[in-house]
């Protein structure tokens, strides 16, 4: 019965995610097709010849009723067809694919750096709560979190690429580079995002730790006469870090938002710069597909985090009494 309840929970959660995904497609469609009113007019500008506008609308398929456009778009998506890019005059899907891979590499780099540092700093701050080290970590985390990526990027570029010349300025590596060179190129673009995420993760970790350290069960463990290290590893960390998983997953989605700025700054061919380019070119098919991809990615990560938390937390796993 326990297994059944868990399975039901998973199915329910999955169904909710699919519902969110569907709503997302409606919202994105609304934003890209309905809100502009007249896509061709938006593309060609207010001075264009009405006949050219009408012709372009017909070519884009925008003269049909919105519901019909939506259905054909969703139908295409389900069969792997994301539509035709107006700017590139070619199918959208291949662009999205390669951009997503690039962005995931950058995101992986970001998280490989920030997760250990953020959690480590949060744990350390909680263990020294109220002392100078805690203050330093908290204030630094707090200040760094709110620095926009383009601001920190400029400082980093100035220091590491212009003055010290330690790291390559461009995020794009020469074709055929090995993983090491790729990593070298990714460090600089990753850092601004690391800076933004560090404070967030550190703060959530610290909060979870402080709560677990003050919990009655921790006192119980101490009063059992357990060595402090065992108390920490077996009783405190386990309960403190669970909520952090969800936080990290949520941040993953936001990191993709930051990618828009960072990728354009470092001229990196990822999903962010693709979306930005499409937005600038008013390439609605591309924009639509790009945004949907970002949203879908976020939905998948939150789903994964939810399931992971459920699996790790016995209270959720075994379905508590209420």
């Amino acid at each position, binding site marked *: 019965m326990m297994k059944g309840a868990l399975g039901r929970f998973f199915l329910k959660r999955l169904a909710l995610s699919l519902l969110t995904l569907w709503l997302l497609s409606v919202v994105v469609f609304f934003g890209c097709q309905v809100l502009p009113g007249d896509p061709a007019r938006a593309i060609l500008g207010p001075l264009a010849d009405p006949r050219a506008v009408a012709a372009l609308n017909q070519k884009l398929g925008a003269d049909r009723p919105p519901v019909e456009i939506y259905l054909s778009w969703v139908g295409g998506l389900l069969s792997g067809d994301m539509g035709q890019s107006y700017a590139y005059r070619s199918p959208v899907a291949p662009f999205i694919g390669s951009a997503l891979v690039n962005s995931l590499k950058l995101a992986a780099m970001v998280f490989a750096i920030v997760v250990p540092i953020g959690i480590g700093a949060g744990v350390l701050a909680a263990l020294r709560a109220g002392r100078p080290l805690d203050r330093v970590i908290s204030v630094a985390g707090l200040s760094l979190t709110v620095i926009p990526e383009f601001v920190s990027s400029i400082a980093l570029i100035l220091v590491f690429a212009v003055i010290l010349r330690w790291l390559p300025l461009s995020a794009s590596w020469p074709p055929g580079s090995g993983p090491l060179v790729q990593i070298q190129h990714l460090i600089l673009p990753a850092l601004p995002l690391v800076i933004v995420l560090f404070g967030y993760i550190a703060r959530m970790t610290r909060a979870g730790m402080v709560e677990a350290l003050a919990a009655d*069960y921790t006192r119980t463990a101490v*009063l059992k006469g357990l060595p402090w290290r065992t108390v920490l590893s077996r009783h405190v960390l386990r309960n403190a870090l669970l909520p952090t998983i969800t936080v990290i997953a949520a941040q993953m989605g936001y990191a993709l938002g930051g990618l828009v700025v960072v990728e354009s700054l470092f001229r990196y061919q990822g999903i962010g710069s693709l979306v930005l380019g499409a937005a600038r070119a008013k390439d609605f098919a591309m924009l639509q597909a790009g945004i949907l991809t970002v949203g879908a990615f976020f939905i998948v990560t939150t789903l994964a985090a939810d399931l992971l938390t459920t699996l790790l937390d016995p*209270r959720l796993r*075994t379905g508590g009494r209420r």
Partner: protein
Amino acid sequence: MTDVTVSPPVLELRDVSVCYRIRGRAVPVLSRVSLSLGKGEVYGLVGESGSGKSTVALAVQRVLPSNGYVSGGQALVNGRDVATLDRAALRQMRARDVAMVFQDPGRALNPSLTIGRQLAEVFEILGSAGGEALRRAEAMLERVRISAPARVMERYPHQLSGGMQQRVVIAMALAKDPSLLILDEPTTGLDATIEAEILDLVDTLRREFGASILFISHNLGAIAGLCDRVGVLYAGRLVEEGPVRPLFRAPRHPYTVGLLRCLPRPGLRKSLAPLDTIPGFPPAPGSITAGCVFAPRCGLADETCRTVDPPQVELGEGRVSRCHHHDRIGSLPHEVVRPLPTAPQPAEHAAGTPVLELASLSKTYGAAPYAVHALRDVSLRLMPGQTLGLVGESGSGKSTLAHALLGLIAPDAGGRMALDGATLAPEVRRRSPEQIKTLQIVFQNPDSALNRSHTVRRLIGRAVTRLGGLAGALREAQVTRLLEAVRLTARQLAARPRQLSGGMKQRVAVARAFAGNPRLVVCDEPTSALDVSVQAAILNLLADLQAERQVAYLLISHDLGVVRYLSDAIAVLYLGRLLEVGPAANVLDGPHHPYTEALLSAAPSVTGERSGRIRLTGAIPSGINPPSGCLFHTRCPRRFGPICETEEPPFVADAAGHAIRCHLPREKLGRSMAAMPA
């Protein structure tokens, strides 16, 4: 510890003082507390909230919160000063000598480890290897009378009931066979029947294990039943100490006297006499610097008391009192004096329209396979000016009944609620203004029931506007009248709840409920969040208001003392089902339903006679999967045959309207042995 000649006390406090640093100021919470615990002795430490009793426990184990520190004196465990222990020695002490059980076992257990894992840990510290530790853990669970220990080992804390969790915590504490066991309010928050079980368990285990026990509680009855000696803590001072029976029989400190007089004991009824109270409030920590801490509230206090700190006076037979006037305690005036009412209260109101009538009221939560029957076919009536006491354990449906009545939840279709004969709609907004003002409520916890951002003027004033339909000067006048009725003054009008004491807050809540001259007030555990001395004053207030205004009460309480004091009729609920209903005296004296009998014998009394005739075992069944036949048969000590498991007993009333739902004939049902003492 292994001293050949004389073994030192297991625990000795010598003039221990503890301060908390709050906003840069040192606030004393314990001042010069001395006590000692011999081997195998059970010492009860009693005090109201804020008396510093839990601080004692934390100081002994050196786990004071980070802003707390021992500012003087010594705490010795087995003759060794706790303060001088280094880290390893301290860990040794915690691992072997001292064990502790706190209130709220649900939070004392790690939510993400199995019971087996957490319990085995204790043995691992003591040097057992994995499998051996698990085996010993299982054996330990058996010793705290947990049936099916192997299954419990696999469970996580949240899968166990509160009583079961506390057994596990006790097992964890006793696993190391400690020389000192500290129990800090171990049964607070548990149902009375479960509390009785846990106290019995502790009583049995103390003999089996031979540990000395420091038992900290606000519950005088629990202390009386379990302890050898008792210390009374007031405002961080030990004001009286001595063997438990003589101390409770003839206390020698005015505070102890006051506490005992406050209790709604058997034999006291609203119609006979008001309860005594202790005037005033406990002082804020550190606010009294000269004289006796109790002097501002003491009826015997004179100039000496206000200037000279009383010494500890040895009274012989191990009794100590910290009072200048310990020899004339008998002359302590009663705080509340009221002549007995000339005429007996009109109990025979049987004719006329009941103010409240419930017929076949049911409430089901959820759908078919997981449906919980919170109320099953409950029919009750309440006459004007009377009190109906509603008792039962948690999950019995008491609160569901109150909420349905108030229109906060809709009962199942088919039942009927009527107020003064008129049908009561299930939702508040479909009720007439007249019905809304007729039916009001006093909640359990005034901190929750009063909006903390509103002033007293607004809290009561809004109710006067809504329920009394008054505005302007009339409204102000009515607010003032209500304040006077609940013994508050205009000085409190501008205060917000957090500036008032617990008792004052509850008075504001009472005033609000009476804003529209209600005819029926639901009192949902009106005193269980309050200290005993405050409880007495609120009970007096409720009794007075009822006598003045002929208001009827539906009194929900788990405290039989409270129910006994205020009720004219009593209804007993179990898993949403009425098991017994009748005039208060008949229900209390018997014959009563085995469940009522168990509830009555679970209530500890200060005389220390823990009747112990009938005890319930086993957890309260879940409402999702209720027992067949008689709902109570799984825990019933008087179950006599298969009929109990297959057939629901009929609900039969006698001539006095006393109905019992049991297959046993009345003459075989239990009765109260105690007659009504004066």
